[in-house]
């Protein structure tokens, strides 16, 4: 399982990348995409929607399952990855890159600090598979 060093992670298996302008990009982790199997559809939020931390903001469907993604930090959606509408497989193929889900303007820029760093997340994954 890939766990890039430069990202922050939530217990619900979302990752957060902080960009230069302070906004963040959110996606699901390699572990999450692997557990879901082939993703066939992504239901994205609308730009401008606001969500509190822990609220579901996006739904991923595989053939026989549905998973919600939960906001790792509260904020407003400023962009969504529209290429997923036609190519949901990007989430499987490149979860940390082309398979990103949304960009968020955070309510509190400090909030991601509370998330796990890569080493902690890797340890968390290890505890799950024990």
């Amino acid at each position: 399982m890939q766990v890039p060093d430069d990202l922050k992670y939530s217990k619900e298996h979302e990752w957060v990348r902080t960009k230069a302008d302070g906004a963040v990009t959110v996606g699901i982790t390699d572990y999450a995409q692997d557990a879901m199997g082939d993703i066939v559809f992504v239901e994205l939020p609308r730009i401008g929607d606001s969500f509190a931390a822990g609220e579901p903001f996006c739904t991923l469907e595989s053939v026989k399952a549905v998973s919600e993604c939960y906001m790792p930090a509260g904020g407003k959606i400023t962009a969504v990855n529209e290429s997923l509408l036609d190519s949901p497989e990007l989430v499987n193929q490149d979860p940390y890159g082309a398979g990103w889900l949304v960009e968020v303007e955070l309510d509190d820029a400090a909030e991601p600090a509370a998330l796990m760093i890569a080493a902690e997340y890797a340890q968390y994954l290890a505890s799950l598979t024990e």
Partner: protein
Amino acid sequence: MAGFVPHTDADRAAMLKAVGADRMDDLFRDVPGDMLLQQPLDLPAPLSEMELATHMRLLAAQNKPAAEEYSCFLGAGTYDHYVPSVVQHLVQRSEFYTAYTPYQPEISQGTLQAVFEFQSMICELTGMEAANASMYDGATATAEGAVMACRVTGKNKILVSAALHPEYRQVLNTYTAGLSVTVEEIPAPQGRTALETLERNLGPDVGCVVVQNPNFFGIIEDGPILGEVVNQSKALFLVCADPVSLGLLKPPGEYGADIVTGDAQAMGNSMFYGGPHVGFFAVTGRYVRKMPGRVVGRTTDGEGKRGFVLTLQAREQHIRREKATSNICSNQALCALAATIHLSYLGKNGLKKLAELCLAKARYAYQQLVRLDGVEPVFEGSFFKEFVIKPRLSPAKVNSYLLEHGIIGGLDLGRFYPELSGGMLFCVTETRSRQEIDCLVGRMGVCK
């Protein structure tokens, strides 16, 4: 042994022994003793097959089926269209009717392909981009469509034309009872949906506008104008349509419908005292994943061969549970198969011709009837295969007189619309001959 249980005494003894039981009751040991029934169920004594066949024949003989023993001029959601022999013959193939829902596609290609063909035909007829595998009937399809519209628009009001079948409206009210959705009626004073009232009530809280076309009174609504009005709002436009009429009428998809529902009993299914019939449900492309019910899609197998599967299942109850688009599970697959076969039988030109026959015969009957002294037309406007007239005598009197002469007359509209009491809704399909129509007119003429 009765009940199609094949076990011999020896089988039963061997099997009981294998499971370590002395008698059948040992297998029910988890049932609390005081709950076990101490005496047999109070039911009539069993019948042999021969006795049952006679019993059922006698029971059936206590009915006087409209389609067999009378000239039937009743419609109102259940129609006496001719069912070609080939439909019944093929639907009775037990490979079709003894199968379950096609969850295992490798051994269900027959059902799956037939459903794909059904979906394709419904799309063609309605002018929509996707259709599901069927709903219980036209009423529940319409109710589920209106609820779906509120869900996708995030709004909580449904405007429904008073010219939608009254029982469909009742079902819609039932389906919305537990939801925070209100249903408001748009009157149809001239036998068609009041456009101005619709415009006035089409506020930002409206998620769906429901119109039947041709409507309950048989009248062809001005689809394009209604579509234009509704499409200017945020509400979705749901049109409930008669598939036979779509042989001649503009498909709702061409006048702005977002959802098209209806009942396809008219295609290949007997009236059957009101069921089983078959609801259909079609949408524009953007709402494909919001539809209730099962959907079949085309794909390929490991060797590249074309095949069909149940798809978009993540919408459904067995996966999404409380967040499913509906709880529907069993549908009306076999009735949908009958509709598919009938539509194939008619084909491109046959459906048009069938619709023309209905139109011509209904028109002829109407003209002859309103020419009679004491029979008044009630509404103006074009109609398809049903129309409303008002005889001088009460509908009850008229109908009982007609019945004495082998005719089942029109529906007494007072039953559903007190303000239209005295009015009768007649239906004339291709199964009514000119002679039967003339006979109806003759009897109506002397029934004063």
